[in-house]
């Protein structure tokens, strides 16, 4: 039984902030479905969030089976939350989605057991026939059912449903409500449903009506219309504006006894209540972070390969970008002329020689520096493209899974591991291709390291941006900007003003990679002439690598921080 005692929620969590919920006291027995009713802004969602533990309670307390939740909270897997819009991996089938949920939320199951359990759950919600269908191909009602199946995977005794019927046709709505009632009965669960629809009130065991944060009614749906003096349940909302929340609440306090007395379990006897209750609660535990990591990584790869257009784009970029570089050096690099090192008094000859040298040297130096910078920028672009949408694009799923017990560390690590493979492939291909086609000189392994590092750095930073962004589009845009600024601020093309140079340089990955990669040419003649054309001094290779590694670490750290931050209420 879930019991609320004088629960008050203020908007900012402090006493003088606007009150969202005011002294709500209610109890919801197991095995019953309760509807939360009320006009917009009446505090329905706040009440659900307070129960879920997402919103702060300013005063009052919540009790589950007599235990104060402040002292001993329910584990994540014991609260199921079904959001308004179904959130699932669209490129997985219904069955895969359920299995994924089982993998993440339920520890200690064998693969076979998971398949069986998934089949049971799908059968429970009536999706057995749609099990092999990709989630993106499911209908609205099927999706709600899938969501219920996913939430039920950890056998939660408390199920919170936020407007699960909105946008469904009347029949589907009735079916879903019947299913919820069945779930409540079947698993001896407390099921709270936030709803606007007043048509099927009869399905619910209890109806709670909230007006401006005050509880105006809590009782059987049959007597609700009578209490509000409405002709039928649909007309209840028309009556509500006639009094303020306080007045309704005072009225409810006054008449409560009468209506509570009328309460009765319509279908099943209360005796069943305690019998089934504890069983699932004790058997279910969340999977460990390592297990979650591998699960997520595997799923990520599965989705990666299943998403054909994405795969094609990735292949196009990886193969195409080196071609862009090669175009500039199809005929190889210009040779560096040599100067006569002899001690000569012939000034005119020396001047002519110096001029010829300067021309040739600047051509060769510019070509080398430019090619390196081009590779760096393109790899940066690839990096941004890799990870900008990675977290922001599935933020809702992540948040739901996190609510259900997903470890942010495991999540970010799985992303990092997935991206690392991409980065290595991209960088290796780029390095090899340019060296092979353009006969690019210098130490190839050093070049690979610095190209890899810049790609990884921008991938990591973009992942961080992705974790901090509201939407995938925001993240994408910000990452592209980040790469776009690398080119002018790198100092490889134009020297920056001294102060700006020192202030910005640590953040410009392109500079460090360019600087480090150029030094792979140290033993070649090209390196000698770089000084003539390069407007910015090069930093030691070790330092370059170090800064880039720091970029990677920092990017992943930011991503992790971003994942720690809950974005529920957005």
């Amino acid at each position, binding site marked *: 039984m879930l019991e609320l005692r004088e629960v008050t929620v203020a908007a900012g969590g402090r006493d003088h902030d606007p009150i969202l919920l005011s002294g709500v006291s209610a109890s919801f027995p197991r095995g019953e479905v309760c509807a939360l009713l009320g006009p917009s802004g009446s505090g329905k969602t706040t009440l659900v969030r307070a129960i879920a533990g997402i919103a702060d309670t300013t005063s009052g307390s919540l009790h589950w089976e007599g235990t104060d939740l402040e002292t001993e909270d329910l584990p994540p897997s014991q609260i199921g939350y079904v959001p308004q819009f179904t959130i699932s991996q669209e490129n997985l089938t219904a069955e895969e989605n359920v299995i994924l949920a089982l993998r993440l939320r339920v520890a200690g199951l064998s693969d076979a057991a998971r398949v069986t359990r998934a089949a049971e759950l799908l059968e429970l919600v009536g999706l057995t026939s749609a099990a092999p269908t990709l989630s993106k191909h499911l209908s609205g009602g099927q999706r709600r059912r899938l969501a219920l199946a996913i939430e039920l995977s950890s056998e939660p005794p408390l199920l919170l449903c936020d407007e699960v019927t909105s946008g469904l046709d009347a029949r589907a709505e009735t079916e879903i409500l019947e299913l919820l009632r069945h779930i409540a009965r079947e698993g001896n669960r407390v099921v709270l449903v936030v709803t606007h629809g007043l048509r099927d009130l009869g399905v619910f065991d209890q109806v709670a009506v909230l007006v401006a944060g005050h509880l105006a009614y809590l009782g059987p749906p049959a007597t609700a219309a009578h209490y509000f003096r409405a002709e039928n349940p649909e007309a209840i909302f028309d009556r509500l504006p006639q009094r303020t929340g306080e007045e309704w609440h005072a009225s409810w306090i006054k008449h409560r006894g009468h209506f509570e007395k009328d309460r009765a379990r319509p279908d099943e006897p209360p005796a069943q209540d305690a019998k089934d209750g504890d069983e699932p609660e004790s058997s279910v535990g969340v999977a460990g972070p390592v297990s979650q990591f591998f699960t997520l990584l595997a799923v990520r790869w599965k989705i990666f390969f299943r998403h054909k257009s994405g795969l094609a784009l990735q292949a196009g970029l990886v193969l195409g970008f080196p071609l862009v570089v090669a175009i500039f050096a199809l005929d190889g690099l210009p040779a560096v002329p040599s100067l006569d*090192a002899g001690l000569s*008094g012939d000034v005119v000859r020396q001047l002519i020689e110096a001029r010829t040298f300067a021309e040739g040297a600047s051509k060769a130096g510019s070509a080398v520096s430019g090619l390196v910078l081009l590779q760096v920028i393109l790899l940066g672009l690839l990096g941004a493209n890799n990870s900008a949408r990675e977290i922001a694009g599935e933020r809702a799923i992540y948040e739901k899974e996190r609510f259900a017990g997903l470890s942010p560390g495991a999540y970010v690590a799985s992303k990092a591991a997935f991206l690392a493979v991409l980065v290595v492939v991209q960088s290796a291909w780029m390095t090899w291709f340019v060296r092979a086609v353009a006969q690019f000189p210098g130490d190839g392994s050093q070049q690979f390291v610095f190209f890899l590092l810049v790609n990884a750095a921008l991938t990591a930073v973009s992942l961080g941006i992705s974790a901090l962004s509201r939407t995938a589009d925001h993240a994408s845009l910000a990452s592209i900007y980040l790469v776009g600024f690398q080119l002018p601020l790198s100092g490889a093309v134009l020297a920056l003003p001294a102060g700006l140079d020192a202030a910005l340089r640590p953040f410009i990955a392109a500079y460090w990679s360019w600087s480090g990669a150029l030094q792979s040419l140290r033993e070649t003649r090209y390196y000698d002439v770089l000084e003539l054309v390069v407007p910015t001094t090069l930093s030691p290779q070790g330092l370059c690598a170090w800064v880039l590694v720091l970029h990677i670490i920092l990017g992943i750290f930011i991503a992790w921080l971003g994942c720690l931050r809950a974005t529920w209420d957005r």
Partner: protein
Amino acid sequence: MKARTLLLLGLLPGTALAQEPGMGDSSAATGGARPPQMNEGFIGRDVPAFDPGSDVAAFDGKVWNINDNRLFRARFEKYLNSSPATSKADVAYRETIDRILDLISPGKATPQNIEAAFSLLKQASDYKDDANLCRTMSDAVYAARTSLKTVERLKAENAVLEKERKAAEWNNQMAARTSTLGISTSAKDSPVLQENQRIERDARLASTRRVLSDITQTIENNKLRIAGTELTTKAHLQALIMQYFATRRFEHVIIANRFYRALYADGDNSIDVYKQMIGTMPTNRDAGQAKINAEFDPKVSAAGGSADSGTSVGTSAGSNGASVGVGQQTQSPGGNAGAFAASGVKMGIENFSIESLTGGAAAAAQSISKLVSSLSQIDSLANEAIRDINEGVEAYKFLLEQGELNSATERLAETFALGEYMPSVRLLSREDKRRALKFTQMKNELLAALEVNDLTRAEKLVGEMSETASDFNTSKPLAKIETAKTISAMHLSKAKNAALSGDRAAMEAELRAAAEIWPRNPALAEVGSNIFAQTDVQQQALNELDRLVEQGDHRAIFRDNAKFIAATALYPERQEKLGMILAQMTEIEGSLQRAREIQQRGDAAGAWESIQLAAAKYPEDPEINRLRADLASGGAATFVQALSRGGDLEARGEYGAALAWYLDAHRQYPPSQMAQERINALAARILPGSSPDKP
């Protein structure tokens, strides 16, 4: 204080200057309308006077031209440069003097006013400008008052004595009578008794007679003292007045005069006493000169100034020791009345102060005393002089306004000579004086230029002066200038003629004469060179060649090579020598020109190196050395320094650093042969058996 009085007296310029023989000449040469010798009469001769017609000032029997003697010029310039006497002290002094004059002016001289004026005298003497004259006057007036009191006391004493004398006379008569009675009664008794009685009476009479005689003696003595005292003080004051007059302190003359009248209201203002006194004084006309010398010669003046006693003047002046001796003698008796009477009129000397004794002043005093018979005369003379001075100043200002600077300056000089201590002169503003000063300076400069025969300068000055002063008479200086020029030109043409006729001695004499008259005559050099040009060119050229060869001045030979080639045509030996010299010089000049061309291209190092090679061959040539030094300290400094430091280090065996410096020199001037040479040498030393410049 005494030294000060001496100097003031000495400041009177003419007393000394008239005795300079040169000055006498110059004033005579100026030739005024009236020769100074003709200035008879007391005005212009015996009191300070000035004759504008001849610029001659006359005083104390001497005359001098005020515009034409150096001392006066200097003194006048000093005055013109000084600021007007408008300082606080000056104004206060003026006010004090005016107040004194006002207090004791005729009609106002009540005993209270006289007392007030008397106290102001001391106050006035505190100011520097007063030179303590008022203090002297105050002392004299005080002495006069004291002596008047003494006279009163003596007169009273005589009155008492007169009574005593009458009593004594009575006693005497009585003594004589009593004895006669006694004798008559007993005369028939015996001659012995009569004799005894006569002896007794005589004895009695003797004592009363002695008393009477004593009293009478004392009364006579007192009478003598009264007369003497009155004489002393009167003569003292009179002498003072005369002294003020002599030193042109006309205001002090008037003040002293009025005090005199106030003290001796008996209407007797004759100066007979003074005249008697002066008559016995020794005079020494050289004394004044000695003092003037003392003032203008710093050494002597220092000696005189430091000595407080008047004797020092005598000793420093040397020639007037005798008169000082007299002063000391007369001073010694002090104020004893009896002795004073015996010394006669010399008594005044004591108060005249010892400096006044010097012959100059005594002579002046004598001259004055000869002419003036009463104090009223002196008084009117002083007033006349003051009026004259004030008019002079007014005239100066007027002339200044008219732009007639010459006359104005002359008027001012006259007025200054006559009354330099008068307020109107002292108060003249500096701006007014400066114009005169400028003109005076120009005038003085003109005189100086004429003295040294700098005719060009003199002519220029005359032009400037006639521009500055509309009334400046240019005819006199111009006449002198033109005359000198003409004479100089005459001598020059004579010199030319002498040169043409080969008379070298005459030519030189004429040239010298011309140069003496006008040393800076521009024609002099021209004529001289023309004369020399006409002498034997060839011989001269040969001589010059020999001389230049001897001196090693090949450059001069090279410069005039055409002349020397022509001159040596007949002398093969010389010709050969000349040919050699010219060949060398051509080479030197060639390298110099080359170096200069390189230098002009902005390549100082190259120029230096080029000239350095030439210098090795011709180390003596000054042009080469000069250019080399110029370059080494100028544009090629760092290059030369690098080479020289490299050389130093190489000499010390520090081949590494030496090579570095040579490389630096090579870097600065890559075509440098010297640097390249040293680098190659060192490279061969460092890497024996190496080949230079292998790629």
